[in-house]
């Protein structure tokens, strides 16, 4: 129960801080690809571009090849490739595809400025 309360406090804090300085939030991203297929290559370059444009200096992108470490697919519940997982900030998001649709990608990563 105590932990639960803590969590709530924690998320409330986060919510408030997000309101004040959303621009400064750090992004933790993980991109799963299945080998260096044209789709994978496209996905990597697309996400790198977006990050450089919108999240300069405050993102952490990890690229994982499922063929090398297949056991990771289970933990992150991967079914499609490529899949980009936005771990932070919450909520968790899975963006599947080669990220060629920039519009959707921007929405999916909550980068759209209001």
């Amino acid at each position, binding site marked *: 129960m105590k932990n639960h309360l803590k969590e709530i406090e924690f998320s409330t804090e986060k919510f408030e801080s997000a309101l004040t300085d959303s621009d400064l939030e750090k992004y933790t991203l993980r991109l*799963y690809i*299945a*080998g260096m297929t044209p*789709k994978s290559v*496209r*996905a990597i370059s*697309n996400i790198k571009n977006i990050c450089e444009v919108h999240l300069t200096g405050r993102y952490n992108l990890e690229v994982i090849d*499922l*063929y090398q470490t*297949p*056991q990771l*697919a*289970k933990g992150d*519940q*991967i*079914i*499609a*490739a*490529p*899949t980009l997982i936005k771990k932070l900030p919450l*909520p*968790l*998001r*899975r*963006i*599947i*595809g*080669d*990220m*060629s*649709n*920039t519009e*959707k*990608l921007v*929405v*999916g990563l909550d980068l759209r400025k209001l």
Partner: protein
Amino acid sequence: MKREPVQPLFSTLPKTATGIQGLDEITGGGLPKGRPTLVCGNAGCGKTLLAMEFLVRGATQFNEPGVFMAFEETEKELTTNVASLGFDLDELSASKMILLEHIHIERSEIEETGEYDLEGLLIRLNLAIDSIGAKRLVLDTIESLFAGLPNILILRAELRRLFRFLKDKGVTVIITGERGDEMLTRQGLEEYVSDCVIVLDHRVNEQSSTRRLRIVKYRGSSHGTNEYPFLIDETGFSVLPITSVGLTHAVSSERVSSGIPRLDAMLSGKGFFRGSSILVSGTAGTGKSSLAAHFASAACLREERVLYFALEESPSQILRNMRSIGIDQEPWVNKGLIKFHSNRPTFYGLESYLTLMHKAINDYKPEVVIVDPISSFIVGTNEFDAKSMIMRMVDFLKIKGITGFFTSLTGAGSDLEHTSINISSLIDTWLLLRDIELGGERNRGLYILKSRGMSHSNQIREFTLTDHGVELLDVYVGPDGVLTGSARIAKEAKEKEEKLLRQQEIERKQLDLERRRRSMLAKVAELQDEFEAEKKETLQAITIEEERIKSFQQQQVNLARSRKADTL
């Protein structure tokens, strides 16, 4: 409990035995080996269970590891759900015979941006299969992908690739799918899985539900095409193959006692045939269950096992009631020779009940099965179903060589020689119990309507329930017709009285005769006495006369002497 795979009649296609009771029989050996099988049906019809049992039986009976990919339930939920069926998934997981993997798809988390494929899923499957060397795989249910991934075109193309991959992998796969409106599955999975399609169905008829299974398609193999009822109970899935009505069962000429000596005497002195089917029909309260109890006890005395399906009474009620007529079945129950199954068939539905009976019979292996009464299978207008169900039950018992004893309640006012289920043609020995109403009372009468293969009595017997069981008595047949009960007793008393009277009359006449003889004798004696007396008198008189004559002659001589008469 390893089981040998069922050998198909003619081998066409390598098959993987499921180990599920009955399913291997109707598929001719199991599911197509190394190919996907689609199991579809509505919600709650047992798809997941069928798939899970396929894996568990594979692991425990055929030593084939299996992977369960759950799209809807987590590993923990699955383990808990099937624990009630006696499947210990934790243990099987620990011994690497079964691998459970939950695939989480949450539409709200997923955003599509451009092209993708399902390589992630394939990699996971591949890893899971390789990690335990799986031979069997379940995808439950892959249609969840359609809910999570909006791009149908990519999905369909990828599914095709997925099934190709699984075929190459050589695993036997069960894919479950929700029943669609016009198609077998909502998303038309049947177009990808074209090797074997099994449809499960859960129907409610007259408020009772029946589960049925049908093999819609089995490429490259013959299979049973009917709808087969199946049952899910505490030991899992069981399908009932019911087409085996070849009428080729062997018959026994051994006889078994009915438990009532007089009844045995009516059945040419030896009782019923072993393995035959016996029907006792009659109106309410004519003693059908009592006959059944006698038969059961007789079987127990022969150390045979009796399975008693009581459809209207609880076991303790039966035991109590039978004790009142002097049949104590409790020792037999304790000894394990009588087993009761008290269930209302309407609770299960006919087909499920039949499956239940099959299972109980297969488990208990009785020599005698009693069903009391079969008429309660009829609820409303399901006569046709009930008849076909009973026919299959009778056939099943005959094939197994089990003596079947059925009672049937004849409704008041209906024709006595008409069972409500019209199964007389299936029955070998038919005993009819009837009320005989006479002189303001009802009495029970019993006669044998038919008994195949033996000469039997044509007599009506009066049937009484005493505190030492059923007794059969001769009915009174006299000039006034057939009499039973107190009329019979009265008539018998009257006859006895008449007989007594006649005897007394004879005695009286005999006494009379004696008396007359004696009086005659007395008279003779008297006459004789009289005669004697007269004789005596007469003789006396004669003597006197002779004396007189003598003295007269003396006087004459004396006179002559005095007159000096001439001497002559």
